[in-house]
């Protein structure tokens, strides 16, 4: 499964890559897409290369091969030279030099195509469409870790996280990846009606904040249990229940919002720890869990 996260800058991309590496994803699973090369600090996403070695080997092979061929052609023709050497070392030297360089050029070019994956696309993976200026991190993760990985991307500061369509096995032409890119571009448009993902942005933020601030005192997954050691009442199906657990009043967003902001007898106020939007996200989250 391939996920993509769109990042506004290199710094947040680095945060995401480090977080994903902590989740045991390797550099092999990660790809950064951009319209201009992105400079990541050393050690973040290194791509070891054997291009220099290939250039040297290519140079040696073609250089020696060409010299051998010259030697062969010059001896092949039985010129009567009266005992003078037939193979001119110095005159051939220039050709040897040029052919050595040609070997280096050819090897560099072929290895560039190889290492970039242009001639053999990696896993036939789909490529995301990238808007100029933005950075897209593509993650190859196991199917059962999609949610966690997506959350990881959001937490690092991704503006948008999406699933990429299934890997293509077709490796025929160079045009194909471009078409794929265009397809994924069109699928990212709102009109295309993509499937809503389990981590719709606001809810994800709410869930994160809930885990950070609320979960220590309030259960949300199960109904209130008198034996629970948590000091606060369970918020399970809070908005779907007839009345609120402590006051017995009819549940309303306003009441819950005020309660979060200003706290109660035991509960601390959160007005200085969360913005209005964040409080709103938490309420959204509480509301959405009950709808399942």
């Amino acid at each position, binding site marked *: 499964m391939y996920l993509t996260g769109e990042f506004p800058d290199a710094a947040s991309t680095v945060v995401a890559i480090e977080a994903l590496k902590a989740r045991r994803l390797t550099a092999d699973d990660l*790809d*950064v*897409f*951009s*319209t*201009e*090369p*992105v400079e*990541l600090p050393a050690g973040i*996403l290194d*791509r070891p*290369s054997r*291009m*220099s070695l290939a*250039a040297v080997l290519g140079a040696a092979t073609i250089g020696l091969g060409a010299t051998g061929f*010259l030697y062969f*052609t*010059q001896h092949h*023709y039985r*010129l009567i030279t009266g005992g003078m050497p037939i*193979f*001119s070392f110095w*005159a*051939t030297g*220039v*050709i040897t*030099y*040029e*052919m050595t*360089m*040609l070997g*280096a*050029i050819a090897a*560099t*070019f072929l*290895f*560039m*195509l190889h*290492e*970039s*994956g*242009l*001639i053999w*696309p*990696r896993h036939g993976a789909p*490529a995301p*469409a*990238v808007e*100029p*200026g933005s950075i897209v991190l*593509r993650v190859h993760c196991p199917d059962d870790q999609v949610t966690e990985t997506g959350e990881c991307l959001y937490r690092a500061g991704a503006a948008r996280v999406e699933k990429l369509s299934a890997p293509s096995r077709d490796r025929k*032409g*160079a*045009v*194909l*990846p*471009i078409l794929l*890119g*265009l397809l994924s*571009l069109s699928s990212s448009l709102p009109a295309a009606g993509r499937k809503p993902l389990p981590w719709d942005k606001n809810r994800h933020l709410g869930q994160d904040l809930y885990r950070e601030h609320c979960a220590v005192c309030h259960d949300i997954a199960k109904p209130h249990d008198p034996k629970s050691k948590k000091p606060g009442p369970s918020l399970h199906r809070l908005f779907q229940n007839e009345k609120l657990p402590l006051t017995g009043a009819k549940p309303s967003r306003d009441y819950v919002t005020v309660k979060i902001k200003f706290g109660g007898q035991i509960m601390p106020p959160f007005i200085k720890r969360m913005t209005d939007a964040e409080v709103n996200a938490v309420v959204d989250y509480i509301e959405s869990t009950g709808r399942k």
Partner: protein
Amino acid sequence: MDALRRDLYRPLQGVSRRYLLAVTIAGLVAAWGLVCWGYQIHKGIGVVGKTRPTMWAFYILNFVFWIGISHAGTLISAILRLTHAGWRKPVTRVAEAITVFALMIGGLFPLIHLGRPWIFYYLIPYPNERLLWPNFRSPLVWDLTAIFTYLTGSVIYLYLPLIPDLAQLAQHTTGLRRRLYGYLALGWTGSDREWHALERAMKLMAGIILAVAVSVHTVVAWDFAMAVAPMWHSTIFGPYFVAGAIFSGIAALLLAMAIIRKAMHLEAYLQPRHFDNLSKLLLLMSIVWLYFTAAENLTVWYGNEPDEMVVFGERTRGRFAPEFWTMIACNFVIPFVLLGIRKLRSIKTATISAVGVLIGMWLERYLIVIPTLSYPRLPAAWGTYSPTWVEISIATATFAAMTLLYLIFAKLFPIIAIWEYKHVSDG
């Protein structure tokens, strides 16, 4: 789309009347050159002026001239890339394209010179079964391999940094163009693996191409220096030619940039400081060129060897004196005054100097090829040479062909590397 892309994609769209006119004129002149070549092949090499003793003439001097021009690009762009010169970004592609086209044209001249171009394969060291007279030590075989290597390298060097731009262009165009860009982009997606490989390859290629470029013009110089002819058999000919090539290459680059800036309205990208930097390079090379010319001529004059003094005398105060002193004026006096005095240095004077240097360097090739051959060591064999209309037509046509190729290139591909422009910071 951001402003940079808008500005650089704009020249690719539509065809203006002026563009059509330029293409038509260049195309007609180039076609006339082809007709002349056909005429020469049909009638035989007798229709050209070269004859005993001047068997190397107009074609070879134009060959040397164009190979020199080809040093504009790859060499200059490789030097700027390796030294991380931040101001290189709008310059590199303009330069690299000159290299590729100048090499194509330059490489054509030996074929035209052959008279029977279909036997060009004599130059290739193939297994010889046919009892010919192969000269395995001929510098012409070096030429072939050197130019072939340089052309291959230059095309790749131009093509590699084009790939990301092509991928972007494919998304912004439709129809045939999209298919062309799509195929040429090789499925570039912009992943970091691709960027890494591209940057590494460009770094390696810059190093390799630098070594090849120096060797190419050295080999062209050795074509002359290996002959024991007066004023050719000189040890400094290799570096002398390389310096001259870089000199004329920078001039060609300056001229191309000035024309592109005006014609494509790229004033915001090809700024005065780019011209200023290149002007300084041109000035430096002008002084280097004068140094080599002085070293070459002073040695001959001081040596006072009779055979050489004949050629030297004809060049400096005899038949070829007007050309010689025009060359000195064009290659040294004009650039030294116009670019050496800071107040006079501007885009306009840089362009004037560039045109001057191109004329001067063409004359230099003329003065290297013709006088030496006209005055061989045996006075009985002395002769004169003047080009016929066929030679002049073909040589003129190559200038038109260069213009035509460049016009087509500039219509199909962004003349400034967009990704590099955005990526490379000003250093």
